[in-house]
């Protein structure tokens, strides 16, 4: 319905505006304008096809080179004139094309389009103004016609009962404002035009002619061109060529380059245009010096293209920048006589320089610039684009494929720096390289490395020369360890540990982590390193889990799960704050930190691993303690919380989520139903994401059997006086030897008051029922002990932590704790649970993600 109405209205208005157009356009101008319009269209096409960039550059160059015209000398004069005219002419044609589009839009009453086109037109006029050319009558004419049609449309709008499209209406009012403003600006011209359009036209032509005597020639050619296509084609190409050969001669390059560089960063600079100019310049650059200079400028301007920090660079631009960096490296690598340095002596930008030049020191041309910063930026932009692309789409995958070329570029840069012995950038570039491969499985690294093998410039450290990925990473890391930069060393260390953990080399990874002493200093590190540390620790926990080291895995993962901010700490998602709203800056900073999706550690898998570990540790413990007092001491608070929650549930349906599975499995384990527990755990789907899932499941089944036996013994020991070992072995389908071993262990550790009767093959329980008084006596002894402990702690705090007093207390306990905590290799079990542990606990996870600090302390 609405469309119908609008259509009717549209046709109405367009007709009327058509009529106005007819009325307003003066008789003698019509023939000029009409043939020009189609010609302009064709011209535009041609420009787009071939010399789009060059023609644009011409127009902008013309204002740059205006001042240089004088010095250029006489022999260039005629060509120069032609060029200016052609540019001017072209602008006119462009303007007319815009006018045509506007006219068309007017016909269908599309004010949005009109508004856009008008903006374009105003911009062109502005440029015209910059070159101090007179305002073409065409513009004035359009202005006047627009004014009237805007007024008409507005009037019609008021009459119409139904409102027009909201955006359209908005555009219309905006147009009204704009037109009003423009009319005011060019009031004199408009008045003059209104008085006598013909005179105005004449005046303009006269002005133009005066300015450039050669002007009429191309002006005449343009209308003619509409008829003769061939002719016009030829004419335009010569103009372009002429311009180019003149503009982009070897000498001109440096001048142009300087012009571009001066325009860089200014408000009105069209960045796309600059890039086009530089591309052209690169094509004609002859000497290495020129090419290096142009490439340096070109790559920087590509990076400049995107001014906002939030969005990523367009992918095509990125790709070309990547290719150009490659080119740059190739040139510099091939010509050792050219060096790119961040700090050089001042040199004349406009002068061509050669290594043979006696002015150059040691015959090396030093050019200001920095390849490493380009590589850094390329890599950063790559990450940024991955952050912004939806990870579930194909676009993400496509983008990810670009990592190969990026990796090649990094390797080339590394090779270059290796050859030139520049240690500082070499360290940085190696770090970049390491960051691309440390968390990847072997197959991916092989794919990346094979691309490097194919490249012409190769670094000394390659997969082929090192044999294995671990070897490669080792070589890279060792270089970084030896380099002086402590930040790089830390990051290399963490990456190395991560890699070991990924390859199930738990012991090496753990030893490296402990020997690095990073857990003590990680708090003062920057956020990115803290994130890497968290990732490493988490991966280490997963590694322990895969290796079947349940206790270690549980202890490692516990810290991050007690914070309940797993995603945030791993930079895989922004934490939703319940009581505090992040400022936009904080949020932005947080977003920038996020890892691209393909680097994520699956948090669900992580949680499953952690909860299963907790179950295996916690359930037997729960069964072993019988007083409520002791129950409060939980090893794994998150797990205990979930378990309590599951206990309170009135009705439990079949398990759906991973947590449900684990909770029900825990219940089954508590009841001694190890088979059910095993089935529930093994049916968790997320295991399929774990490498070697089958082996892990098998390992879990075995652990469940053992812990099931322990839980069973703890739970049901009070109800038996003897229990046959063979029965136990049947129930838990464990070999008799294993059962004996487990029971013996429990007896030896005094967890179970029982002993074995070898001849009967039974466990004999010696349970003593305590009388009420005895129980109370024990409780009071415990409480007195606890009180003393409290006193000691209070004194500790008063004395300011580790004084001579602390050592004394430890010594009294007959343990060598004090010494052990100072050990160089504070092994996990030993450092945990000691007095220092209270402080060390939270400390083991790097939590301070910048903005989090105030919320934690407050």
């Amino acid at each position, binding site marked *: 319905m609405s469309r119908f109405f609008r259509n009717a209205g549209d046709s109405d208005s367009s007709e009327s505006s058509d009529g106005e157009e007819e009325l307003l356009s003066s008789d003698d101008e019509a023939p000029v304008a009409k043939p020009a319009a189609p010609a302009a269209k064709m011209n535009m096409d041609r420009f787009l096809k071939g010399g789009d960039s060059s023609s644009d550059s011409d127009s902008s160059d013309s204002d740059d080179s205006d001042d240089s015209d004088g010095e250029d000398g006489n022999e260039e004069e005629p060509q120069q004139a032609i060029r200016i005219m052609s540019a001017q002419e072209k602008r006119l044609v462009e303007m007319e094309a815009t006018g045509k589009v506007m006219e068309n839009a007017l016909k269908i009453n599309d004010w949005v389009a009109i508004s856009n086109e008008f903006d374009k037109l105003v911009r062109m006029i502005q440029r015209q103004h910059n070159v101090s050319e007179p305002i073409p009558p065409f513009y004035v004419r359009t202005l006047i016609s627009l004014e009237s049609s805007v007024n008409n449309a507005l009037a019609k709008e008021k009459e119409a009962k139904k409102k027009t499209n909201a955006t359209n209406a908005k555009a219309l009012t905006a147009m009204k404002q704009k037109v009003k403003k423009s009319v005011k600006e060019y009031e004199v011209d408009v008045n003059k035009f209104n008085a006598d359009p013909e005179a105005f036209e004449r005046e303009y032509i006269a002005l133009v002619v005066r300015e450039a005597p050669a002007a009429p020639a191309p002006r005449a050619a343009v209308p003619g061109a509409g008829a003769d296509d061939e002719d016009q084609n030829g004419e335009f190409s010569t103009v372009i060529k002429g311009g180019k050969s003149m503009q982009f001669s070897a000498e001109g390059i440096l001048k142009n380059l300087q012009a571009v560089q001066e325009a860089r960063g200014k408000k009105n600079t069209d960045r796309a245009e600059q890039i086009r100019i530089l591309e052209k310049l690169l094509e004609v650059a002859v000497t290495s010096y020129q090419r290096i200079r142009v490439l340096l400028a070109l790559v920087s301007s590509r990076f400049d293209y995107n001014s906002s920090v939030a969005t990523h660079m367009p992918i095509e631009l990125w790709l070309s920048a990547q290719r150009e960096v490659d080119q740059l490296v190739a040139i510099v690598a091939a010509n050792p006589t050219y060096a790119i340095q961040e700090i050089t002596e001042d040199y004349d930008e406009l002068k061509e320089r050669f290594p043979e030049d006696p002015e150059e020191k040691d015959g090396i041309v030093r050019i200001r610039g920095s390849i490493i910063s380009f590589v850094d930026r390329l890599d950063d932009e790559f990450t940024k684009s991955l952050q912004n692309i939806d990870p579930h789409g194909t676009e993400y995958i496509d983008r990810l494929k670009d990592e190969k070329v990026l990796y090649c570029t990094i390797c080339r840069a590394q090779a270059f720096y290796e050859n030139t012995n520049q240690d500082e950038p070499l360290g940085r570039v190696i770090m970049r390289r390491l960051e691309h491969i440390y968390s990847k499985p072997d197959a991916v690294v092989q794919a990346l490395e094979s691309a490097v093998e194919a490249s012409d410039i190769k670094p000394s450290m390659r997969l082929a020369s090192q044999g294995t990925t671990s070897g490669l990473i080792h070589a890279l890391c060792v270089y970084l360890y030896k380099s002086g930069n402590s930040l790089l060393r830390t990051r290399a260390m963490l990456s190395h540990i991560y890699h070991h953990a990924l390859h199930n080399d738990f012991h090496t990874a753990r030893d490296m982590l402990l020997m690095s002493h990073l857990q003590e200093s990680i708090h003062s590190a920057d956020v990115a390193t803290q994130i890497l540390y968290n990732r490493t620790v988490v991966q280490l926990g997963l590694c322990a889990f895969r290796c079947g080291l349940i206790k270690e895995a549980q202890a490692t993962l516990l810290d991050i799960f007690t914070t309940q901010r797993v995603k945030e700490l791993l930079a895989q998602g922004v934490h939703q704050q319940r009581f505090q709203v992040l400022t936009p800056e904080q949020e932005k900073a947080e977003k920038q930190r996020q890892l691209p999706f393909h680097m994520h550690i699956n948090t669900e898998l992580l949680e499953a691993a952690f909860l299963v570990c907790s179950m295996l540790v916690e359930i037997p413990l729960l069964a072993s303690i019988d007083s409520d007092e002791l129950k409060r001491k939980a090893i794994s608070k998150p797990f205990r919380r979930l378990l309590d929650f599951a206990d309170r549930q009135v009705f439990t349906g079949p398990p759906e989520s991973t947590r449900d599975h684990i909770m029900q499995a825990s219940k089954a384990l508590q009841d001694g139903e190890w088979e059910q527990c095993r089935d529930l755990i093994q049916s968790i789907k997320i295991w399929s994401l774990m490498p070697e899932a089958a082996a892990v499941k098998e390992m879990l089944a075995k652990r469940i059997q053992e812990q099931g036996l322990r839980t069973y013994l703890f739970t049901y020991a009070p109800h038996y006086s003897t229990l046959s070992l063979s029965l136990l072995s049947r129930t838990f389908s464990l070999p008799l030897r294993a059962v004996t*071993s487990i029971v013996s262990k429990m*007896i030896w550790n005094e967890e179970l008051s029982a002993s074995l009767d070898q001849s009967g093959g039974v466990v004999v329980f010696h349970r003593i029922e305590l009388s009420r008084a005895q129980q109370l006596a024990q409780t009071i002894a415990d409480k007195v002990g606890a009180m003393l402990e409290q006193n000691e702690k209070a004194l500790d705090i008063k004395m300011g932590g580790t004084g001579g007093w602390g050592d004394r207390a430890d010594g009294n306990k007959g343990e060598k704790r004090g010494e052990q905590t100072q050990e160089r*290799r504070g092994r996990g*079990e030993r450092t945990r649970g000691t007095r220092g542990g209270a402080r060390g606990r939270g400390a083991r996870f790097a939590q301070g993600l910048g903005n989090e600090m105030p919320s934690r302390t407050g």
Partner: protein
Amino acid sequence: MAEYDLTKRIMPYLDRHLSLPLLVHLSDTNLFAAQDVQIAQYELAKATNMPDYAANLFSQIYPDQEVPAEFAQKRQNTMLTHQRLQDEAQAVLDVIENPDVAQALRQDKEQNLQYLKDNYNLTLDQIAALYHFGQFQYSYGNYSGAADYLYHFRVLSTDNDLNTSAQWGKLASDILSGKWDAALQELDTLRESIDSRSLPGPALNQLHSRTWVLHWSLFVYFNHPAGRTLLLETFLSPVYLNTIQTSCPWILRYLAAAAILSRAPPPGATPRVRNALREIIKVIQMEEYQYQDPVTAFLKELYVEFDFEAAQLQLGRAEQVLGDDFFLGEFSADFLDNARYLISEAYCRTHQKIDIRDLSERLNLSPDEGEKWIVNLIRESRMGADAKIDLDKNVIEIFRPAVPVYQTVIDKTRGLHLRTSGLGQAISRLGMGAQQGQAEAPAAAPAVAVR
């Protein structure tokens, strides 16, 4: 059993001369081809100043070849050098051995040096001649002579590097000449200087020094009568335990063996020695991934897995390994005895009724011997009152009455007094600094509360 031989791992951390006895021992054990061992011996001896020995070895290995002429040449050189160095050193020695001088020398080295310089015109360079001669003597095998000269040098010299070097030299000489008491003393001073030294260099140097000390001390500890206890004392101190874990996990074998050997520590042993086994088992478990041999496996099977059969199996293998080991060879029988004891102890503690025949089997003994052994065990050990042998059924019955509740309460509260007074002292010390009078009140409070 060749795979459990540690010679190859230990040798890199030993001096050339210290390795020779190891190789000689190897040639006795027949673990490796005799020819190979001899060649290794020859390669070692070639670079020492013992041309006769090297030549001798050469002719043994290649009986059909002429002994290379270089040995004769070398012999000649050695003699000449010896003469020269001796002359130099003699000058110094003459002065030192003068009774007047001996009396005049004091503790202060600087002063001594000044004294010698003023009265006898002895300079530091001349004193260094003592060091060189000592070193030279060591290199051709005159160890006791070397020890003498190095000792004198150390007394006089102020050069730190050379002093350290002389210390090592003296230790090696003492070891090789079999003066175990002296070696033990030397070892202690050396260890002290390494541990106390705050080297400007990287911590790695210290680690290396400690690794060397660990290896060299094996000679001393397994030859000195009280060595095993001392070994536990030293090796279990955190710094050395770390060194073992970091750079030489195979030392764990000696640590484990020493712990088993000193199962019943002499009275007055430190808690570290008494709890050695527990500590070592923890470490063995931790380092399992990088080092394992029958000795450590035995402890692991017994105390971690409680698999008595496997433990017994490992014990059999450990016995062999021990027999072949240079350091532990002599202690093989002793080790076996103690290990048996450990097995039966663990067995008795977890079992209530034990078939004697079965236990004897576990201990690799015949039933008769087993019975004797068990009776001895019961008599010796603390469980004497609880265990009874029932000959009729041929079983031992162990009645282990549960610990009375009151006992546990007493145990729990036993330490409280001491800790509380510790608290009080700490507070009074704290108060001492600030104000004398105020310290009394808070000190009394916790003590009262606890009691």
